[in-house]
């Protein structure tokens, strides 16, 4: 029941975020300079920020950025991990030690500091689209190592399995064996990795945004929307500033509820020959 409720909440958040242009009372970057830091009213349900932008509209657009791009970054990590694990397992010469070493190096790199250095090298007026690509692209590229370790171990088991041998003796092509025989077993692992990475990336984006290193304004994201929380007087004056944080916490709780769900995990029932 809790899992279904969590799923319903997540779907609702995703739907509202995707419909942001239709629902939002104003564009996310529209500034009404005569109505800065205004309290909530009929036109601005959550009030306005210091530049006169509608907080509710910015929350909707910010949710859209996070809801669309976090899963995309997680998917990029999982796809990269799958692609890099394949040659390590299918006996491409020197690929196994190369991928293993590359994974170890990737896991030991302080990605946050590298990202701060990278952003420091960029001009201050970096465009929002560049910052989006950098933020989520870097998350996607830097997050492949842990899933790659999981996939490599799983694929090694698959490679040495009896059914892969049977497929080889049937004359099946390697890519076909991976696709037909391997994927049904890797799919649940890939989904599990996605479920692990999505909340990690939501929090990462929030952390970067809080530091002013995430998505560049005026484009909103959960990360740069919670920057306002650094100013207690703003929070006291307009508690609606907490809305992005509340939404982030709600989404994280719902994702955690899904992680423990036994009824939506794919192919969880064991099969055995009798």
């Amino acid at each position, binding site marked *: 029941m809790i899992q279904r409720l969590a799923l319903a909440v997540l779907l609702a958040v995703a739907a509202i975020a995707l419909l942001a242009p239709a629902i939002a009372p104003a564009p996310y970057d529209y500034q009404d300079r005569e109505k800065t830091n205004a309290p909530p009213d009929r036109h601005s349900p959550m009030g306005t920020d210091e530049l006169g932008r509608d907080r509710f509209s910015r929350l909707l657009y910010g949710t859209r950025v996070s809801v669309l791009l976090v899963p995309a970054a997680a998917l990029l990590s999982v796809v990269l991990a799958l692609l890099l694990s394949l040659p390590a397992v299918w006996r491409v010469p020197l690929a196994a030690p190369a991928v293993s070493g590359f994974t170890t190096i990737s896991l030991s790199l302080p990605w946050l500091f590298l990202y701060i250095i990278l952003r420091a090298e960029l001009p201050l007026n970096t465009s929002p689209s560049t910052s989006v690509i950098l933020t989520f692209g870097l998350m996607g590229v830097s997050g492949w190592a842990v899933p790659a370790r999981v996939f490599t171990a799983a694929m090694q088991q698959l490679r040495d399995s009896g059914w892969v*041998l049977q497929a080889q*003796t049937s004359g099946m092509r390697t890519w*076909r064996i991976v696709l037909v025989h391997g994927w*049904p077993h890797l799919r649940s692992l890939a989904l599990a990795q996605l479920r692990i990475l999505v909340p990690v990336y939501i929090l990462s984006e929030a952390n970067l945004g809080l530091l002013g290193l995430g998505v560049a304004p005026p484009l909103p994201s959960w990360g740069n929307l919670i920057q306002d929380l650094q100013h207690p007087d703003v929070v006291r004056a307009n508690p609606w500033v907490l809305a992005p944080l509340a939404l982030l916490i709600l989404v994280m709780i719902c994702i955690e509820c899904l992680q423990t769900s036994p009824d939506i995990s794919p192919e969880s029932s064991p*099969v055995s*020959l009798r």
Partner: protein
Amino acid sequence: MAAAPVKPVLEFRLTARYGAHVVLREVHAAIDPGQIVSLIGLSGSGKSTLAMALLRLLEYRGGAVTGSIVLEGRELTGLSGAAMRGIRGNRIGYVPQSPAAALNPKLKVSTLLRETWRAHATAKPPEDAFASLLESVRLPGTSGFLNQRAGELSTGQGQRLLIALAIMHKPALLLADEPTSALDAITQAAVLRLFRDLNRRLGTAILFISHDLLSVAALSDRVEILHEGGLVESGAPAQIFHSPRHPFTQALVAAMPRDLRSSSPLEPEVPGPEAAGPEFPPP
């Protein structure tokens, strides 16, 4: 005029090793078209290694093979990976030991059949091809069975399905690696009879690998005894049973029950319909 000598479908002389450990040393044998040869040896004597070596799959499992493997007049040892892929499942079929291990439990029977077909054919399979193939190994060709997952099959059904997959492209040679060791006695006899029927019907030569001399005696035209990495004795089943020459073969025969030894070659007796398995009244 003397008849032309029969060209063996398979002739090999090979040495197989894992690193420095030599598992098979200069093992040599030939199998004529349509012949059933049984390879008997103890567990760990290198029987499965020989099967993997003949399929050129030993290198995938960390081993190495030197020597010669000639299939239908074609030397296999120098062939590329792609060329060998074209031979596996097409000219050499392989029936593994355990359906529990060899059938992907998540795949449907229809998927396994379709993928095995696609490995060597670009055209669609003829209508009802899979149904008739399944019926040839005494499995139902119904859509219900085709939609079953391999993990839902019984061991006997799984073994028959493995045989169906192995014979789909009508190979010249079938390597059967202890295909009955996971089966109960009745299913074992039925599967042995099925192998004999397929051999007679399709003319497929069979290399039957087993540790059980008794179970394959009736099936075989010739028995090869593998011991400590080499073939130590070769002969007709009757000769192996009644006058074994090598001490290992003598020990093997002596280990069999006396009354069974004296009645060789042994016919796998299966009551009920031919190879379909018996039907018994309920308790």
